[in-house]
């Protein structure tokens, strides 16, 4: 290996009784892109946060460019040349992009912040990466992809030698991921080291030179990408074989449950019509920003629609009323479970039973007991991994949190389940379990509408694929005809109809 840039050896870190890192190691060379893989809870985040200066190791050594890395201070970590790009960058919405790039170390002349210099330096860095953004505009309202670009520019402005990208692609569209990869390769060509964390194995194998796989806080394997395949990577990650990523059972397709006709919300989506039947899983595919989440929000009544109708089991829902949708048997599992789906500090049982509280309220004294009974029942069916049903949800891993959201809504015994990005940010093992769960529910007669940006998931799970582009429904593709190409073509190229 050419010039070893970063070397982490024998890293240990405990939080209370939990061993977050237990013998982790990581090697990165200059001009190399390393894929860091592992299930949620494998210790990647802790390792990244340590390198970002947010944690200090209990034991182990970190060497950066031949010198010991001084831990536990974010500013010092940056000064030593490590920059971290997070999945959801935390920019300062009220500050200009220029100031976001230079925050905390604004250029000064005679002790005075040099605004003009700051703006022109930022413009220069933007130009260098081909980023078309005005350094003077505030960060508020930037797309996630643009926010990440600002973070990358920030990394360049401190001349970072090692750039860590923590699940950058999770919220990006395919085109944006391609742009991100281009930039990552450019960083590599400049002789910088890149650590790329992603749950999407195809991305990792396409972009990275080598992979390091973590499990239960330890590094279990490191290999050059050229010498391995994804099956091997998955085996390392989960420590077992995953027999079926997309368990799809044959379900009997019955009556129409959801019927959407001419649904329009001015400037957002236009003339959307489709049906979903009992036992069917229908995927709503398209690029980020195509209006998919907005359509399901309107179906559920979170947003008003301007014209058109939504009917469930034959009766038309009141416009803009989530409670009407819920009493008609519609359940929505939102995209952002942290913000919209869960009360993080509340108990698992309380979260699961929340939607059925009305039913439980009749027996006031027994509520705590029935809450636990409902919750334990669903936790068992979903194979939730928890210590105590009364533990706060925030203590669960991301995948298990998602199961809690699903349980919460399935407990209402819905006729139609809408899931928005059901497996975003979830490790492969849990992902397969969520898929199995959706499939089982379909067999039991549930109608499922799934918004997903994960193409293999769409192809693996859906009976029919509806493709949206720029607020319009542009294609309906049957399971037999759905391929990566047919879906992406419909999603990206105007005029193409499948």
């Amino acid at each position, binding site marked *: 290996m050419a010039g070893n840039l970063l070397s982490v050896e024998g890293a240990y870190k405990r939080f209370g009784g939990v061993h977050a890192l237990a013998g982790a190691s990581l090697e990165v060379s200059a001009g190399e892109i390393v894929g860091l893989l592992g299930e949620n809870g494998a210790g990647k985040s802790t390792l990244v946060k340590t390198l970002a200066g947010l944690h200090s190791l209990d034991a182990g050594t970190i060497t950066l460019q031949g010198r010991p890395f001084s831990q536990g*201070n974010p500013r010092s970590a940056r000064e030593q040349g490590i920059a971290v790009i997070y999945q959801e960058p935390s920019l300062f*919405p009220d500050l200009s992009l220029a100031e976001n790039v230079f925050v905390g*170390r604004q250029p000064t002349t005679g002790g005075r912040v040099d605004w003009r210099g700051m703006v022109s330096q930022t413009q220069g860095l933007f130009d260098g990466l081909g980023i078309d953004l005005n350094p003077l505009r505030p960060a*508020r309202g930037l797309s996630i992809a643009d926010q990440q670009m600002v973070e990358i520019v920030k990394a360049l402005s401190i001349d970072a030698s090692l750039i860590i990208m923590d699940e950058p692609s999770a919220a990006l569209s395919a085109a944006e991921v391609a742009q991100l990869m281009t930039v990552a390769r450019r960083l590599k060509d400049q002789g910088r080291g890149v650590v790329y964390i992603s749950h999407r194995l195809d991305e990792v194998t396409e972009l990275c030179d080598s992979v390091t796989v973590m499990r239960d806080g330890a590094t279990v394997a490191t290999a050059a990408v050229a010498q391995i395949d994804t099956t091997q990577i998955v085996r390392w990650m989960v420590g077992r074989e995953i027999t079926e990523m997309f368990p799809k059972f044959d379900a009997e397709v019955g009556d129409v449950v959801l019927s959407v006709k001419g649904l329009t919300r001015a*400037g957002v989506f236009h003339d959307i019509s489709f049906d979903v039947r009992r036992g069917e899983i229908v995927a709503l595919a398209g690029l980020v920003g195509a209006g998919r989440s907005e359509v399901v929000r309107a179906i559920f009544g979170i947003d008003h629609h301007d014209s058109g109708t939504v009917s469930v089991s034959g009766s038309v829902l009141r416009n803009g009323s989530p409670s009407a949708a819920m009493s008609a048997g519609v359940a929505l599992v939102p995209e952002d479970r942290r913000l919209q789906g869960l009360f993080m500090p509340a108990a698992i049982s309380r979260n699961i039973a929340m939607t059925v509280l009305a039913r439980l309220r009749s027996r006031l004294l027994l509520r705590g007991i029935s809450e636990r009974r409902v919750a334990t029942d669903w936790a068992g069916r979903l194979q939730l991994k928890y210590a105590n049903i009364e533990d706060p949800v925030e203590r669960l891993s991301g995948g298990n949190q998602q199961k809690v959201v699903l349980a919460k809504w399935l407990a209402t015994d819905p006729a139609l389940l809408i899931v928005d990005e059901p497996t975003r940010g979830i490790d492969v093992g849990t992902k397969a379990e969520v898929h199995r769960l959706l499939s089982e529910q379909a067999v039991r007669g549930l109608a499922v509408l799934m918004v997903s940006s994960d193409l293999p998931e769409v192809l693996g799970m859906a009976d029919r694929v509806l493709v949206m582009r720029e607020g319009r429904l542009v294609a309906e593709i049957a399971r037999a005809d759905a391929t990566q190409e047919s879906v992406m073509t419909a999603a990206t190229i105007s005029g193409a109809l499948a």
Partner: protein
Amino acid sequence: MTGRNVASTALKAREFPILVALAAVVVTTGLVNPTFASSEGISAILIESSVIGLLAASQSMLIIMRQIDLSVGSTTGLVAFLVGQNAAANIGVPFAVSVGVGLAVGLVVGVVNGFLIAYLGLPSLVVTIAMLYVVRGVFSHLAGGETITAEQVPAPLVELGSGSIFGVPYLFVCALIGAISVTLLLRYSRWGRDLYAIGSNPEAALRVGIPVARRTFVAFALSGIFTGVAGLLLLGRFSFADATSGLGIELYVIAACVIGGVAIAGGVGTAVGALIGAVLLQTITFALGALGVSQFWQQAVAGALLVLAITFDRVVAVRSARRVVRRVEVLA
């Protein structure tokens, strides 16, 4: 910057609409009641806005970093009282000592607030409400029924309270200097930029290594010193202090900040804006008086103005968000 640039920057500033509103109120009321827009009338408004204006300027610093200090009313009154009492008990005490006493009292309260909020992580809303009562309680105990009257007030403060330069009351000059200093400090020092960053996204501020706790502590301490100065101005203004001095003014201070374009959610605004907000609030109160509206209605209008200010802010925010969404749609 070219002249055109300066003009366009000024037009785009958040403070601009408030200045327009201010001018509109002065002109229309002046047409109905000419004494209102006279130099005496304006001077009276400026005098009346000074204490709240200075407090608002210093408060803006805290609101910008997503904190709040509701103890300023009690502290301002306590400072005014203690300075007067100290001067009365030690006849011939140098003025510098009086100033020192005032600033020290303000600083002590600021440091206590800052310590509890920055290092113990307690919410500033609760801490400073508690301090509002604690300080007022201590104040009432110290003051009892005692009052500070004109002859006990240090002479320079009396002069400060009544004099003017080029028709601008000294009191307002003090407030203006305070507001401009805070504005420049926040615009041109890294320390000040950190406050905006903290208010805009506290978690991200920690991530980029801004010493959030230290910045918070120092900001509260500094705000305490400004409160000390405000106490001196208050004593000079009325040449009088008793256990009720400064009672309830903290809410006018917060209102002045919000009306002056300081976003209550942090990250946005300037101290000069907050001062203009204080002047506008005062001007409207005076204008309603000049138009013969009863005092009770004056308070209701002040409240309505506050709602108007945040509504305006919200509309602007929603509009710019829509623009961004449209842009994203075009790209997608």
